[in-house]
């Protein structure tokens, strides 16, 4: 488990709600000013769960979490299931690195706190898998319109989030639902193009439509 800043909260909640730990688990908590109460609780949990290893990293003094540190603490990383929680950039960066190390996609679970929201007027880069190959383009605002402006012809219907004709697989990146304002996770999920906009760089698979 990798927690950055307030990302410790859900991970701690998970740990405090289980009654037994039957597999080795390493919780790394990296923060500028860590929550002393939660940190103390995590240290105590190590007594309850012998297989729990809690490592606290003060990113002000020791610097941010680096790959070498992670590999040193968890050598068998590739076999583990990974939980990431923190600001969007943190989760995305570590997810990419973990996948590069060979951790399968399904073994990485993440939550991002959109604390570092990009403004909706910012351009985001899109990497789109189409039947003709992979296309790189920029997007601003409504994804369906952005794709059409890039010369693509995604499937669509009502263009207002009712009919689900424009469903498309998002491989990576965060989007915002324009109707409800909710932010998505960073991983693979199906989105409605007509009512979402990109909040971070995205990877989309247009061949997954219809």
């Amino acid at each position, binding site marked *: 488990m990798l927690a950055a800043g307030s990302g410790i909260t859900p991970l701690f909640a998970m740990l405090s709600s289980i009654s037994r730990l039957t597999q080795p688990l390493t919780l790394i908590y990296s923060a500028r000013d860590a929550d002393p109460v939660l940190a103390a609780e995590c240290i105590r949990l190590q007594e309850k769960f012998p297989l729990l290893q809690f490592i606290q990293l003060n990113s002000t003094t020791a610097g941010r979490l680096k790959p070498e540190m992670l590999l040193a603490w968890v050598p068998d990383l590739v076999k583990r299931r990974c939980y990431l929680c923190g600001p969007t950039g943190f989760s995305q960066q570590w997810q990419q690195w973990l996948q590069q190390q060979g951790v399968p996609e399904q073994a990485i679970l993440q939550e991002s706190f959109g604390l570092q929201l990009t403004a909706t007027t910012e351009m985001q880069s899109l990497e789109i898998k189409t039947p003709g190959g992979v296309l790189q383009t920029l997007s601003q605002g409504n994804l369906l319109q952005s794709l059409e402006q890039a010369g693509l012809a995604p499937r669509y219907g*009502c263009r207002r989030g*009712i*009919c689900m*004709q424009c469903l498309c697989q998002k491989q990576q990146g965060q989007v915002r639902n324009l109707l409800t304002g909710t932010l998505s996770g960073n991983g693979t999920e199906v989105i409605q193009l007509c009512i979402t906009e990109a909040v971070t760089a995205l990877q989309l698979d247009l061949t997954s439509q219809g």
Partner: protein
Amino acid sequence: MNTLSQFLSAHQAEQLAQELDQLAATTRESLGESDARYLQRLVAVQRLAAISGRLLLLAGFWSAWWWGLGVLLLALAKILDNMEIGHNVLHGQYDWMNHPYLNSRRFEWDIACDAKSWQRTHNFEHHTYTNIIGKDRDFGYGLLRLSDDFRWRLRNLWQFVTYLLLSTLFQWGVSYHELAAQRVFAGRKKADRHSQVSDSELKKAFFSKGARQLLKDYLVFPLLAGPLFLQVLLGNLLANLIRNWWTATVIFCGHFTAEVYTFSAEECEGESRGQWYLRQMLGSSNFTGPRWFHILTGHLSCQIEHHLFPDLPASRYLELAPQVQAIAQRYQIPYHSGSFLRQYGTVLARILRYSLPATVRQTRSGAAG
């Protein structure tokens, strides 16, 4: 003649949208384990009914009563598959489950109609353009004249018979619906219709799905029964007919009862979200009944709630209905509901009434028909 602005001002429409959006958001947040289990239990019941129904058709060898029970069970299986499961899964109501098969992109249903074709005409066209004359082809299916907005034609005189035929062959009517709209086989292409699917793709889907269904019910299963070929074939035929009659009846009650409103394309131009909600309410009607009855209708008995929230699991509509009704009352929007028999009665009356042109009806009754 702007029906929408008669009921709500622009500001009221905005407020209505906010209230209904909030209701949907709260419900969406509460979706979870119990909804998933409900769907999976339903699928289990459907499969059990299908298997036992098909097996009992064979038992007709001993007694026709077993065969009759088999037909009913198979009809139940088809009805559940088409309505409470199929229609709702294809609307994306359960996509949040991330189920490998019970999702709107993968599911295929036990009916002649290709699922993707259905999604285009129903999820997109019907739900977006509900009751807009000229845009919602579900309002009469291009066969029946159900309001004075349509010009009277000679064939409307016998449209009650057309209705009975459509009901009997409903699964084929549904399957052909998109091809009729696209004028694939007959008629001149309409200039303002554009489709993202080519005619040849439409034909391919229509014939391949139709053929698969025919082979399954009228060749493969009968052949598997060996000497009992004929009783299985007849059983399958009757089960399909029962499904056709039931689904047609329920579906007709959704938008063709006495009090529904129709709309013109002009008045819905630039429609706001609140006005869309209003049109959905004015154009749909509910009927009442016991809980098992609602399930058999795929909760299309709650047509109003379904049209307001097509992407929320239909099993939630019954609990939403009182809240929707309360909102309707506050905004003084009519909420059409009644007993099933009453509603269906008005549907039949509507089919008969508009068999005749307005002028004839006025002279006969001495008042506007």
